């Protein structure tokens, strides 16, 4: 049932992205309501799959590679839905919905089984840490998606090309605002999430070097962006570029650690 629900969620995420791409094929506005409803349906089915996981395994889907990726995908989709509803703007779906579909697909391929450390490591502390950390990463991914769109549209505007991107991407100012809000939200969530993890590691004298290096790297990346935006007054172009560079760095680091990590079947 979980695998089937994942498959349906993937289809709905991709369908939402397809609907958001309609303006590129026909000169009409994106069907905002339809995109929002299809995405919400995908989220509902995805959430049902994770609820089923909890009922089967009696623990949240936060440990183990498959469950963690699936949870991260759900958070990306929820973050996207929040942005869509607040901004009445669905072009971000073009990037973020396929990302959610991709993560869900990887989760299914990896298998929805809890990680080896799950037993004996439950509790609000650990659960909160993982949930907040994923939320922070999802916000970071959203900021990166907005940054990519900003750079693409800016390039089009600078080079005076007035094609589909000019017509259907939101204004540069809107993309910059999404990037700003998502960076700050990501920093808040990651700070609390990693703070909880650090105190947990100190309390129980446990920890995993690779995981800690990656987590602190991600936190440093988001923190530098937040300081740049909030304290140094970085705006638009510079911020979009750095968000993408740093997010790509975090993803590359994750892939590298996945390759060298001896512990299989975990997110890290």
């Amino acid at each position: 049932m979980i695998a089937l629900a994942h498959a349906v969620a993937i289809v709905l995420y991709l369908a939402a992205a397809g609907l958001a791409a309609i303006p590129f094929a026909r000169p009409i506005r994106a069907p905002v309501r339809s995109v929002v409803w299809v995405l919400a349906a995908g989220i509902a089915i995805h959430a049902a799959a994770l609820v089923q996981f909890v009922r089967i395994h009696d623990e949240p889907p936060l440990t183990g590679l498959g469950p963690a990726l699936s949870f991260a995908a759900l958070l990306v989709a929820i973050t996207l839905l929040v942005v869509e509803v607040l901004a009445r703007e669905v072009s971000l779906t073009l990037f973020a919905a396929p990302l959610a579909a991709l993560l869900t697909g990887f989760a299914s391929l990896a298998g929805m089984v809890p990680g080896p450390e799950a037993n004996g490591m439950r509790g609000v502390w650990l659960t909160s840490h993982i949930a907040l950390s994923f939320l922070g990463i999802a916000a970071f991914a959203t900021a990166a998606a907005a940054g990519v769109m900003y750079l693409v549209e800016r390039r089009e505007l600078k080079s005076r090309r007035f094609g589909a991107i000019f017509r259907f991407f939101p204004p540069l100012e809107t993309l910059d605002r999404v990037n700003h809000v998502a960076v700050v939200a990501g920093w808040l969530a990651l700070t609390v999430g990693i703070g909880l993890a650090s105190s947990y590691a100190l309390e129980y004298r446990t920890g995993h070097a690779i995981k800690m290096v990656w987590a602190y790297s991600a936190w440093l990346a988001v923190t530098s962006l937040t300081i740049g935006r909030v304290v140094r007054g970085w705006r638009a172009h510079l911020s979009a570029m750095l968000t993408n560079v740093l997010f790509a760095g975090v993803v590359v680091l994750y892939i590298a650690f996945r390759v060298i990590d001896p512990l299989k079947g975990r997110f890290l």
Partner: protein
Amino acid sequence: MALILAGLSHHTAPIDVREKVAISSHETPRVLEELAQITRARELALLSTCNRTEVYVVEGDAPAAPGIWAHLSRRLGGSADAASYGYVRRDREAAAHLYRVASGLDSMILGEAQIHGQVRDAWEASRSTSRAILNRLFQSSLLVASRIRTETAVGRGAASVSSAAVQLAKKIFGSLSGRRAMVLGAGDMADIALECLVSEGVRTAVVANRTHERAVSLVERHGGEALRYEECWPRLADVDVLLCSTAAPHPIVERAQVEPAMRQRGDRPLCILDIALPRDVAADVGTLDNVFLYDLDDLRSVVANNIERRRQELPSAESVIAEEVELYWQWLAGLAAVPVLRTFRSRMDRVREDELAHALKKLAHLPADDRAAVDLFSRALMNKFLHEPSVRLRAASANGHGLAIVDALRYLFGLEPSDSEAPSDDAPNVESR
């Protein structure tokens, strides 16, 4: 009797003809009165804009077009014949034409919205001579126009240079509300473009012009501060949109002036709209980071793209029109049954009254209440009998099958054709078409 339209437009007549036959709003009542007398039409409506003069008519006993051409030819003067510049559309084609006009599909700038208001005004001005058929036609044309604007992209995107300038600025800043603009030059183009920007909420900061008085005049209309060229450069760092429209023969905005301003602006973008010819802004200004420079060719390119995309939406708009014309025609055809039904019911009512009077003579002993009850009974019984045939006749007429039934009704109940074809305000005979 038919629904017809006779008129001329920018498709068929040059501007010197159109301007002579154009009818101003204060002339409209008099012209409608004259046309009503000439054409002996049952209903009349007049639509006159700078691009078209059209008369919509529900004909009476005589054809209306000759009278309309005679009137328009008089306005042309001399021996000119207005008919040679014009067109006549009948029935469904006339309805479809008005739907196209109201939706901007027949306009010079495809999909322009201004015509919607002009059609509404024309309808209002023709209320004295329009009745059920034209009222419904004009009302539905406005609804069709709204439907087309909502369901298709025919009206989407800027279709003029000034609105393209707004579209470009909005693509950078989102809302233009509260943004600051600087205008170099105070000619007509600057005036129009600035009016568009101000209507979007832009605050005019500075207007600079070689002739200070013209800058002052522009400021009086749109607000802001009038300066001389040499005074405006330090203010460049504060504005978001720079609109250039001077008559200078060489660029007056150089990289050396913009670069320091951009350093002061930090990472804030600056949108430069150069609508002057020759251009006011040196091309290398556009290479500066965060400067978005657009010239007249760019704005025209935006307009051309939008118009082309509007054109691609024409088939969708035409299918909406075809659908709505059919609905209108069904309604109109339903009206054809009205006079026959009216005659039929009045004939039956006379029979009822005769028979009731006859019966009440024999029942003279009954008290007044009982006599009233018998009267009520006879009315109710007749209404019951006639309800179903009336509904079915209307439905058959709406589906185009009413003529045979109307004939059968006439034959069976001995209704004289002249009874049912008597002139009526809301009963065209549309089935023969």
